């Protein structure tokens, strides 16, 4: 799916990612790391919201290093940022509807799927997204992304700031999405335990560099702890 070669990226003059190379296959690809490891920067760059400072980015073999952000959904990439992941003034329904603009299937069908996955959203269709609780907001954000009918779903720390019950629900929804719809998922997380339950492969970032990249089965908590410096 995604091929990343010698990627450097960051904000303005500040470099965050240093020479990152990896490839995402049809899988749940987890990016773990402590605060400030560069997870958000990586996902934003994949979504083309941050310029690539150097290196290449390919999607399905096609070079998208300089593709404008708004063409990415058409190419099958949906992105859920960690912060600002809904349109606060728009209603729940409108948020979903904005997501539903891409893809070929009818909106109604996709809506039904999202409501099956997150029944709570159905009860709140006319409520402004800004007034949702943290967990509901996160569900809406994922739901909006799924409305795009993506091939690749980029999720940036969906568990951040959520209560444990919501985290459980959310992660099982993510696993279900993978299983039912075959969507490739790039999941950036700090929550290693939950992530290891559903990921196929795991890349651990530490201060902008790749600490390790392995299959889940070859990975122990100890490997991760080292990268977290605890």
């Amino acid at each position: 799916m995604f091929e990343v070669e010698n990627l450097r990226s960051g904000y303005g003059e500040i470099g965050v990612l240093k020479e990152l190379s990896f490839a995402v296959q049809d899988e749940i690809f987890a990016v773990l790391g402590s605060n400030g490891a560069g997870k958000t920067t990586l996902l934003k760059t994949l979504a083309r919201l941050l310029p690539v400072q150097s290196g290449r980015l390919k999607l399905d073999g096609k070079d998208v290093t300089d593709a404008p952000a708004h063409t990415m959904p058409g190419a099958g990439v949906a992105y859920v940022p960690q912060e600002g992941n809904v349109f606060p003034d728009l209603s729940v329904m409108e948020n979903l509807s904005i997501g539903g603009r891409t893809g070929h299937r009818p909106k109604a069908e996709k809506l039904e799927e999202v409501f099956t996955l997150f029944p709570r959203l159905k009860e709140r269709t006319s409520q402004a997204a800004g007034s949702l609780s943290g967990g509901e907001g996160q569900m809406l954000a994922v739901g909006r992304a799924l409305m795009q009918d993506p091939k690749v779903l980029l999720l940036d720390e969906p568990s951040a700031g959520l209560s444990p019950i919501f985290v459980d629900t959310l992660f099982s929804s993510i696993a279900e999405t993978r299983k039912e719809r075959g969507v490739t998922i790039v999941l950036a997380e700090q929550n290693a335990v939950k992530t290891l339950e559903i990921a196929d492969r795991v890349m651990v970032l530490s201060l902008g560099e790749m600490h390790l990249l392995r299959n889940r089965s070859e990975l122990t908590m100890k490997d991760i702890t080292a990268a977290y410096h605890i």
Partner: protein
Amino acid sequence: MLIVDAIFIGLLEASPLILAAMGFTLIFYLNGFMNIAYAESITFGAYFAILFNVVLGAHFYVALLPSMLLSGAMSVAVYLAIFRPALNRGVGPTEMIILSVGVSFLLRYGLILIVGPENLFLNEPSIVYMQVLGLGATNLQLVALALVFAMAGILYWMVYYTGLGEQMRGLANNRELAMASGINPHVTSMAIWFIAGCAGGMSGVFSGVFAQVTPYMGWNVILITMLVTIVAGVGSVRGAFVAAVVAGILTAFITLVTKPLYADVVLLLAFIGVLTYRGARTA
């Protein structure tokens, strides 16, 4: 009776203002700056109407549509030529306003250099006075009122119930997420500037037909439009609609109970008061 009078007169007087406030708000909401050159969308709308109605001799109601569309086209042209490059260069909101003052001067005095400073008059459709609910009004006023409200309704519907409105509000709300959701910021912005220009143009045509067409007519209502927009809160089209109607009725009411000129003073003081409590805070 005073109140009914006020409401009726207020609605009649506010009708062009409602459209102007809504169009102005759209741009304010989308691009985050007060576009003083929006005054020229209003003025040019009226002059386009002069072109079709007086010069080319079309019926007033026939001239309305092309005038409106041309005004929208001009709005897009100005956006593409000046405002978009400036926004891309990161010009701040206050400088954008000053820039829009420059654009406003350029357009207005350019217009005067071409057509002259004289006041012009549109050929009104034949006027019939009628009694509605015990109040006197002309058929033109009533048609204008109906058309303005229809247009305002269409704008409202467009902003709140169509895909374009959704995209526009999404873009204004969270630009990054909007782009990540596949909204093309350029196309959406152009659409908004076009629609805002159309609303301004129509507002200008009606202001023109009720009084006269002058190069300063847009300028004369831009202050009140700005204030209405700010009072309505940053970029709620719904709010601009309500605030424009309220401002119109309030002006009419104050005019009826006091000396006419004090109406402006009271209204302006009220606006400053609202800004004190509602304006966005800095440190």
